């Protein structure tokens, strides 16, 4: 085999391009395209009485204005509910342009197409929409208590209600277990809204070829195959006439998985109607009010436990703020409900959630997708138990951990993919040992005493999680070796900066025995691979990575077969190294993979010297067999799909030391440590990068980011001046250690790593601040102003 590549910290091959401005993002394309802009609702809830576009018609350079009335029925109808669920009794989705009622600030009401974006925005400003404001409901509890109805036909605002019961091994339900437990606690927790904030907003560019009657769409999406099928269906086009390409995508974090967005339907439709290229690039203000948010939940917890802190029964009720629509179904609260269990064996569990409509931006998965909330709930519970029993917080966790001998461990629930929640592998006690060692848990008392002597306040916190990754249904890999010896790998899922060009090349180069620089990788281009699901749920390495490995194995097998014939050797005796196939032990007998690729494609015509080797008189072959044997295909290529049986479960534990300023209530993270297990590591550097980014995002959720809606449904901080994503200056150095418990489920033994970093951060920081302050922390995010208020309240109680 070529120098070991799997497992090596190979430098990211995409970086030189992306860092020197050679990336091709959506708005870099289609320089001659018309520009679209949208009139969006300024009201959180209103009836549209009238839309008067006449004022805009004088704008020079205006091409078209569309309102709901102008759309053909197929285009105008509500967007699809992507993931139906029996419990989602009242799922509702928006229409591409509002019909009669708007339900959140930012909902699209009219589309303008003009020669450029400046003119399009000028025209938008001149369109008069006559709204009759209605009372909005913003607070999730008010909405659930029968506040104003977001959807007139959904009284009570409850979109979905689901109860899941996992009784004890002896069949006792959770509530009964809690009643009979030696100790019980009950409390409430709150997590506020945040949102995916990719540096590049959404965007779509459509080109209709009038002669060919075909549509090419570029979208800044996490699923080009999904967008393609949705567009073909909406616009009534044959699937082969639509191609969708995700160019370089500047981050997604979940929001670009939702599809089709209104703009993904309207822009291609307008391109067809107008016979012109049309482009829309979302700006930041639009992103705040017209894409997706997540995280908002109120959690009501009851727990029963014994003297060692073992959880005998856990009963959680979640009020999940779903915003105005449910295009992505109830995946987020399902993930919260199931992944809340973390690495623990819980006596009996009951979880109930209500997904509630509010007049705010819709909620769909955002990196972590409900897990940060679930982990916040469970880890705060562990800390409360420890405080109640006066036990070390890690001892309570240790008492509840699933043991290494218990895998596969069945949590007896249904996971987000509709499959049983069975953990495949892991070593949680070892993880706990490692994190305690890394952060210095057992010597923290001395550190605290030393700090206290200087008048400083410090605290330590820990958080553990398990993350189901690599969900199905499938991904594919296509691998082609061309006669120049190059290897072209493609997979259908898309890339948003994760490093797929590097890790997929590592896998292919390793499997095929070729140098890394001969391998190129294409993702998210339906021209290359039409079957795919998308990039989400930390699934690319697991599902596409496995598919690519399987495709490479097919190619390798075929290459060895052809080489064996050419070298008159047994395929079993052949080795591939550096792109050359040799007979083991006989140095002279070798053939280039490039030559094998040439021979694999019998040719009639010699278009160059290399090709001449494959023509009929140069390589006559066996006269009794057809040039391509039965069951064979020309070329040295292979395609394979990998469809996982179930998710594979990655895990990790984080710990942090924070300092709180006794005077200003500022919160500073002094140290942040991560122990991470994503099975076999393909590229530890890329995994660490994913962890760093995730932790940074988690710090945002813990200390900075919130969606500050007022009671009228106006988002008061819809800009980067006021929505506080942490800068590098706010992120501590992150110390990481890896544990590798391979997954038995896939050919590479890998688990997902994309979301991990973000998941436990809020829980960890809450625990650490609580430890520093001696004040119960039951909501996130936590600002200095919040901490000041908590101190004042605590002082009044004393």
């Amino acid at each position: 085999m070529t120098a070991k590549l799997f497992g090596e910290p190979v430098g990211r091959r995409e970086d030189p391009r992306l860092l020197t401005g050679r990336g091709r993002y959506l708005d870099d394309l289609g320089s001659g395209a018309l520009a679209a802009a949208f009139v969006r609702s300024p009201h959180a809830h209103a009836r549209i009485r009238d839309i008067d576009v006449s004022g805009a018609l004088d704008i020079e350079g205006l091409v078209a204005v569309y309102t709901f009335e102008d759309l053909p029925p197929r285009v105008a109808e509500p967007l699809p509910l992507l993931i139906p669920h029996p419990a989602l009794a009242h799922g509702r989705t928006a229409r591409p342009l509002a019909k009669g009622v708007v339900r959140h600030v930012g909902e699209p009401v009219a589309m303008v197409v003009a020669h450029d974006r400046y003119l399009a925005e000028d025209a938008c400003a001149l369109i008069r929409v006559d709204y009759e404001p209605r009372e909005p409901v913003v607070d999730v509890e008010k909405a659930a208590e029968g506040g104003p109805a977001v959807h007139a036909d959904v009284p009570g605002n409850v979109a979905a209600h689901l109860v899941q019961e996992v009784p004890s091994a002896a069949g006792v339900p959770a509530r009964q277990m809690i009643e009979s437990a030696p100790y019980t606690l009950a409390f409430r927790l709150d997590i506020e809204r945040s949102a995916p904030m990719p540096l590049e907003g959404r965007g779509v560019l459509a080109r209709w070829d009038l002669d060919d009657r075909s549509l090419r769409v570029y979208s800044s999406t996490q699923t080009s195959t999904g967008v393609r099928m949705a567009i073909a269906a909406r616009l009534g086009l044959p699937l082969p006439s639509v191609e969708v390409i995700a160019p370089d995508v500047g981050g997604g974090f979940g929001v670009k998985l939702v599809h089709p967005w209104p703009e993904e339907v309207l822009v291609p439709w307008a391109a067809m109607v107008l016979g012109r290229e049309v482009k829309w690039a979302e700006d930041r203000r639009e992103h705040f009010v017209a894409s997706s948010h997540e995280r908002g939940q109120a959690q009501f917890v009851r727990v029963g436990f014994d003297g060692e802190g073992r959880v005998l029964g856990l009963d959680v009720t979640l009020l999940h703020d779903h915003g105005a629509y449910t295009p992505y179904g109830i995946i987020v609260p399902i993930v919260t409900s199931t992944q809340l269990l973390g690495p623990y064996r819980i006596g009996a569990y009951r979880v109930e959630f209500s997904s509630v409509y509010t007049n705010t931006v819709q909620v769909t998965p955002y990196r972590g997708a409900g897990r940060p909330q679930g982990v916040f709930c469970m880890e705060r519970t562990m800390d409360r138990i420890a405080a109640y029993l006066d036990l070390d917080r890690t001892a309570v966790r240790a008492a509840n951990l699933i043991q290494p001998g218990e895998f596969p461990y069945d949590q007896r629930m249904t996971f987000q993919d509709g499959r049983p929640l069975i953990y495949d592998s892991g070593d949680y006690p070892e993880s706990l040992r490692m994190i305690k060692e890394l952060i210095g848990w057992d010597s923290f008392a001395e550190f605290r005493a030393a700090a206290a002597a200087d008048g400083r306040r410090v605290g330590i916190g820990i958080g553990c999680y398990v993350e189901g990754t690599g969900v199905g249904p499938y991904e594919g890999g296509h691998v082609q070796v061309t006669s120049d010896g190059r290897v072209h790998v493609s997979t259908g899922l898309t890339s948003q900066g994760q490093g797929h060009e590097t890790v997929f090349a590592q896998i292919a180069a390793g499997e095929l025995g070729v140098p890394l620089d001969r391998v190129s990788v294409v993702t998210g281009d339906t021209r290359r691979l039409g079957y795919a699901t998308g990039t989400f749920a930390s699934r690319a390495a697991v599902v596409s990575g496995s598919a690519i490995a399987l495709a490479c194995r097919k190619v390798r097998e075929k290459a060895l077969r052809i080489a064996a014939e050419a070298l008159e050797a047994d395929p079993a005796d052949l080795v591939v190294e550096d792109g050359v196939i040799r007979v083991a032990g006989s140095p002279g007998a070798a053939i280039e993979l490039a030559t094998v690729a040439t021979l694999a494609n019998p040719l009639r015509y010699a278009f160059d010297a290399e090709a001449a080797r494959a023509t009929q008189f140069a390589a006559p072959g066996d006269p009794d067999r057809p040039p391509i044997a039965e069951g064979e295909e020309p070329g040295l290529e292979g395609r394979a799909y990998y469809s996982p049986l179930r998710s594979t479960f990655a895990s990790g534990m984080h710990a942090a030391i924070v300092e709180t300023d006794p005077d200003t209530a500022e919160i500073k993270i002094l140290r942040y440590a991560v122990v991470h297990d994503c099975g076999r590591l393909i590229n530890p550097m890329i995994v660490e990068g994913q962890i760093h980014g995730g932790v940074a995002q988690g710090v945002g959720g813990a200390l900075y980011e919130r969606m500050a809606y007022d009671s009228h449904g106006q988002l008061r901080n819809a800009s980067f001046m006021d929505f506080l994503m942490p800068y590098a200056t706010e992120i501590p150095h992150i110390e990481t250690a890896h544990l590798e418990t391979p997954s038995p489920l896939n050919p590479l033994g890998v688990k997902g790593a994309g979301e991990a970093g973000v998941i436990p951060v809020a829980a960890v920081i809450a625990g650490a601040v609580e430890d520093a302050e001696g004040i119960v922390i039951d909501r996130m995010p936590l600002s200095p102003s919040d901490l000041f208020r908590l101190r004042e309240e605590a002082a009044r109680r004393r």
Partner: protein
Amino acid sequence: MKPPPFGYRAPREVGQALADIAAVGEDGKVLAGGQSLIPLLNMRLAAPGTVVDINRVAGLDTLTAGPDGVRVGALTRQARVERSEEAAAVQPLLRQALRLVAHPAIRNRGTVVGSLVHADPAAELPAVLAVLDGSVRLASVADGERDVPAREFFTGPLEVAAGPDDLAVSAFFPALPPRTGTAFHEVSRRHGDFALAGVAAVVTMRADLGLEEARVACAGVGPVPIVVDVTAEAGAGDRAAAAHTVRERIEPEDDVHAGAAYRRHLIGVLTERALAEASRRAADA
């Protein structure tokens, strides 16, 4: 986030600039570093008919540090003043404050005068000008040049005593008197953000090292920088009393980042910290 159409003028010398500004009047806006104006235009929160870009006007990028103080021309970028040893020697509070203004990339474009004219209530430089009792030099075709002292210049949030015909040509920051120390302390949510609350302090000692004068100016807790003389309290050695006096004088408000009560509390803490540091520096001076 694209601005509506606007006219554009780019004068080359001050006389032409004043004529252009006078010609466009109320309907015009001066463009200096653009770090505040361009976002306002792009978000369509400002829609001037004409933008008068002064970036090519000769002679406005001056920085002179003399025995009286530091005079900063309208085109002198914040970064240049921050890095100037001469300016720091004459009036150290400038550098102390500028380090807290935004981020390096913004300070490379943003001007000191632009920040003063923009008069964001949470900005550092207005507080500096106010606590030093500096001035802004305005010029117009009709009224010629005149200096407006800080206490008259800041009239409200984002409001200053400059008319639509006025160009602010420079600002003057008086020099540090002998035996004087300064300090700027603030708390912001993230590095480089506008402060939740900030305090600039100037402390002058007598020759016998008793306290002669102590003044602070607060940012982010009122419509304009709030200057408070705390000579009596600080002179009695009671910084807590000084903090109390200052807390009583400010008018903080709630916003998405912090509550009014927290801001009031912070001003007390920052006053004590800034006075302590300024006093130490005064004693060393």
